[in-house]
């Protein structure tokens, strides 16, 4: 996921557009389109406004746009940078240009292929290797061609390309049709599959609200080993798919708040707070669930969250 445009349910769409009111804000938070980043962005906004009395604007954008904005001074904060997915942007702006600073604190993330518990227990699909078995892959066939269908992500996601590589490496590219689609469609497909106990397998990442909505389990696979993880960038080689190989699990991902170097000079207290800010998987998951599934208005959710997590927020503010 996350080099990428994740289309979340429409309930968020109207809530998360730029909230500029015509005057220059003290700082701008870029919002990529996946739900957990949006939830985190609203919490950061609430903390900065409530505790530091800053005027904060939210502005939607792709990862590339937000990093470029931190570079040119039009955006100050990216609420959730996934590594290693966005390593190229990290290297460009944090390492080489030094126009962005990545917090050392991170929330661990996980990604891979998931099934419903019914699929795992009722159909015995527990390992990624199972998908390369034509008989097992056929359980996911929805169009009668004898091959299963597997959603591997949005067409714009960096992870989608890697899932294609993994499918080829594991062998299920031969037995499964790899589908790219809007995440909203894919998640609704999970809902519909659960409703009729139909087996389904799909690319997944955590934290994500789907784990709270349904009983979802990751398929088992060999642990990540960098020696078996050879990913060629399409920009480097047109034969990237055949030259890449990754028949092992993803490395653990990490979600970092990132802010512009300029912010560290203009708003040092804000930068200090962002460096100290520490979330965790449960917090991000519950925030996302409240906004996406329960339909809470994001700013109202953020206000309540900050109010009920006063000690935690104060600790961030007090950190040196």
């Amino acid at each position, binding site marked *: 996921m996350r080099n990428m445009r994740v289309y979340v349910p*429409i309930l968020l769409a109207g809530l998360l557009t730029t909230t500029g009111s015509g005057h220059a804000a003290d700082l701008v938070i870029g919002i990529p389109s996946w739900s957990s980043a949006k939830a985190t962005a609203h919490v950061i906004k609430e903390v900065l406004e409530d505790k530091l009395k800053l005027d904060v604007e939210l502005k939607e954008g792709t990862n590339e746009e937000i990093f470029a904005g931190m570079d040119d001074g039009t955006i100050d904060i990216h609420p959730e940078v996934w590594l290693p997915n966005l390593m190229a942007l990290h290297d460009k702006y944090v390492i080489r240009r030094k126009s962005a600073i990545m917090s050392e604190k991170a929330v661990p993330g996980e990604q891979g292929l998931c099934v419903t518990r019914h699929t795992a227990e009722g159909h015995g699909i527990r390992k990624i290797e199972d998908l390369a078995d034509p008989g097992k892959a056929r359980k996911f066939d929805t169009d*009668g061609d004898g091959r299963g269908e597997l959603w591997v992500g949005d067409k714009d996601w960096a992870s989608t390309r890697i899932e294609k590589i993994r499918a080829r490496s594991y062998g299920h590219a031969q037995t499964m049709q790899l589908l790219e689609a809007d995440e*909203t*469609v894919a*998640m609704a497909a999970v809902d519909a599959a659960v*409703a009729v106990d139909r087996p389904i397998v799909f690319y997944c990442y955590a934290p994500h609200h789907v784990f709270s909505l349904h009983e979802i389990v990751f398929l088992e696979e060999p642990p990540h080993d960098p020696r078996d993880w050879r990913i060629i960038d399409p920009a480097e080689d047109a034969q990237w798919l055949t030259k890449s190989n990754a028949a092992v699990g993803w490395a653990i991902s990490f979600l970092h708040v990132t802010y512009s170097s300029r912010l560290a000079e203009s708003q040092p207290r804000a930068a200090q707070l962002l460096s100290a800010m520490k979330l965790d998987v449960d917090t991000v998951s519950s925030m996302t669930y409240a906004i996406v*599934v329960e339909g809470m208005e994001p700013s109202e959710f953020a206000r309540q969250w900050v109010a009920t997590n006063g000690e935690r927020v104060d600790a961030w503010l007090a950190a040196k």
Partner: protein
Amino acid sequence: MAGCEMIEKTRIQTIGSSSLVRPAGKKFLCVLMLVAGFLLPLTVHEVFAASSQIYDQTQRKWVAYTPDLARQFYRRHNQTPETFRRQVVPFRTAEKPGTIIIDSVRHFLYFVLPDKQAIRYGIGVGREGFGWTGIVKVGRKQEWPRWIPPKEMIERDPKLAKYADGMPGGPENPLGARALYLFEGKRDTLYRIHGTIEPWSIGLNISSGCIRMLNDDVTDLFERVEIGAKVIVLFQGASLLKGV
């Protein structure tokens, strides 16, 4: 028009005297009906008409579940199999109430309700499923919609030429009692959710791509759904790759 409103005429075939219905590849899991000289409903778990098979007692083997069986069932019972009848079902989703989710594989249309429930309607879809996937919205609603047969359809069936300027809405109109016009942004996709004059066809893949519902069901949905409502068409195999 997209040409999705015309129900394709199907051949009548003789079905064996006793039949079970199951989804392809699932032995005895989803028994729909037993035919013993006539069709009797048994336990219904789920039916996948397009990809389903029936157990023909005469031939003693599983054979394709065809439109003919659907015709026979409807003729006997004057209604669709239970699984395709309108019903409230548990449905956990992040989509907000009022959203429509179309599962053309299972021939279900879900209208999302509060409290993790949905109304599930049986639908009929195109020969190749719905033909596309994606997110659209209800751009317009129409009672007793007018039907304009596509040019290609008139070429295939010259008798339709008299409706080249449109067939008025009414009980003979293939679009049935109501139609929901699906838009992508401000653009009419030319796909519709509409009623039907062939209620037996619910649960089958035999139209040209639109979503057909029983007239009572599409009327019920029409009353519930709002203009602008989100419609999610789930993927079915390669149709996903085509987009809207």
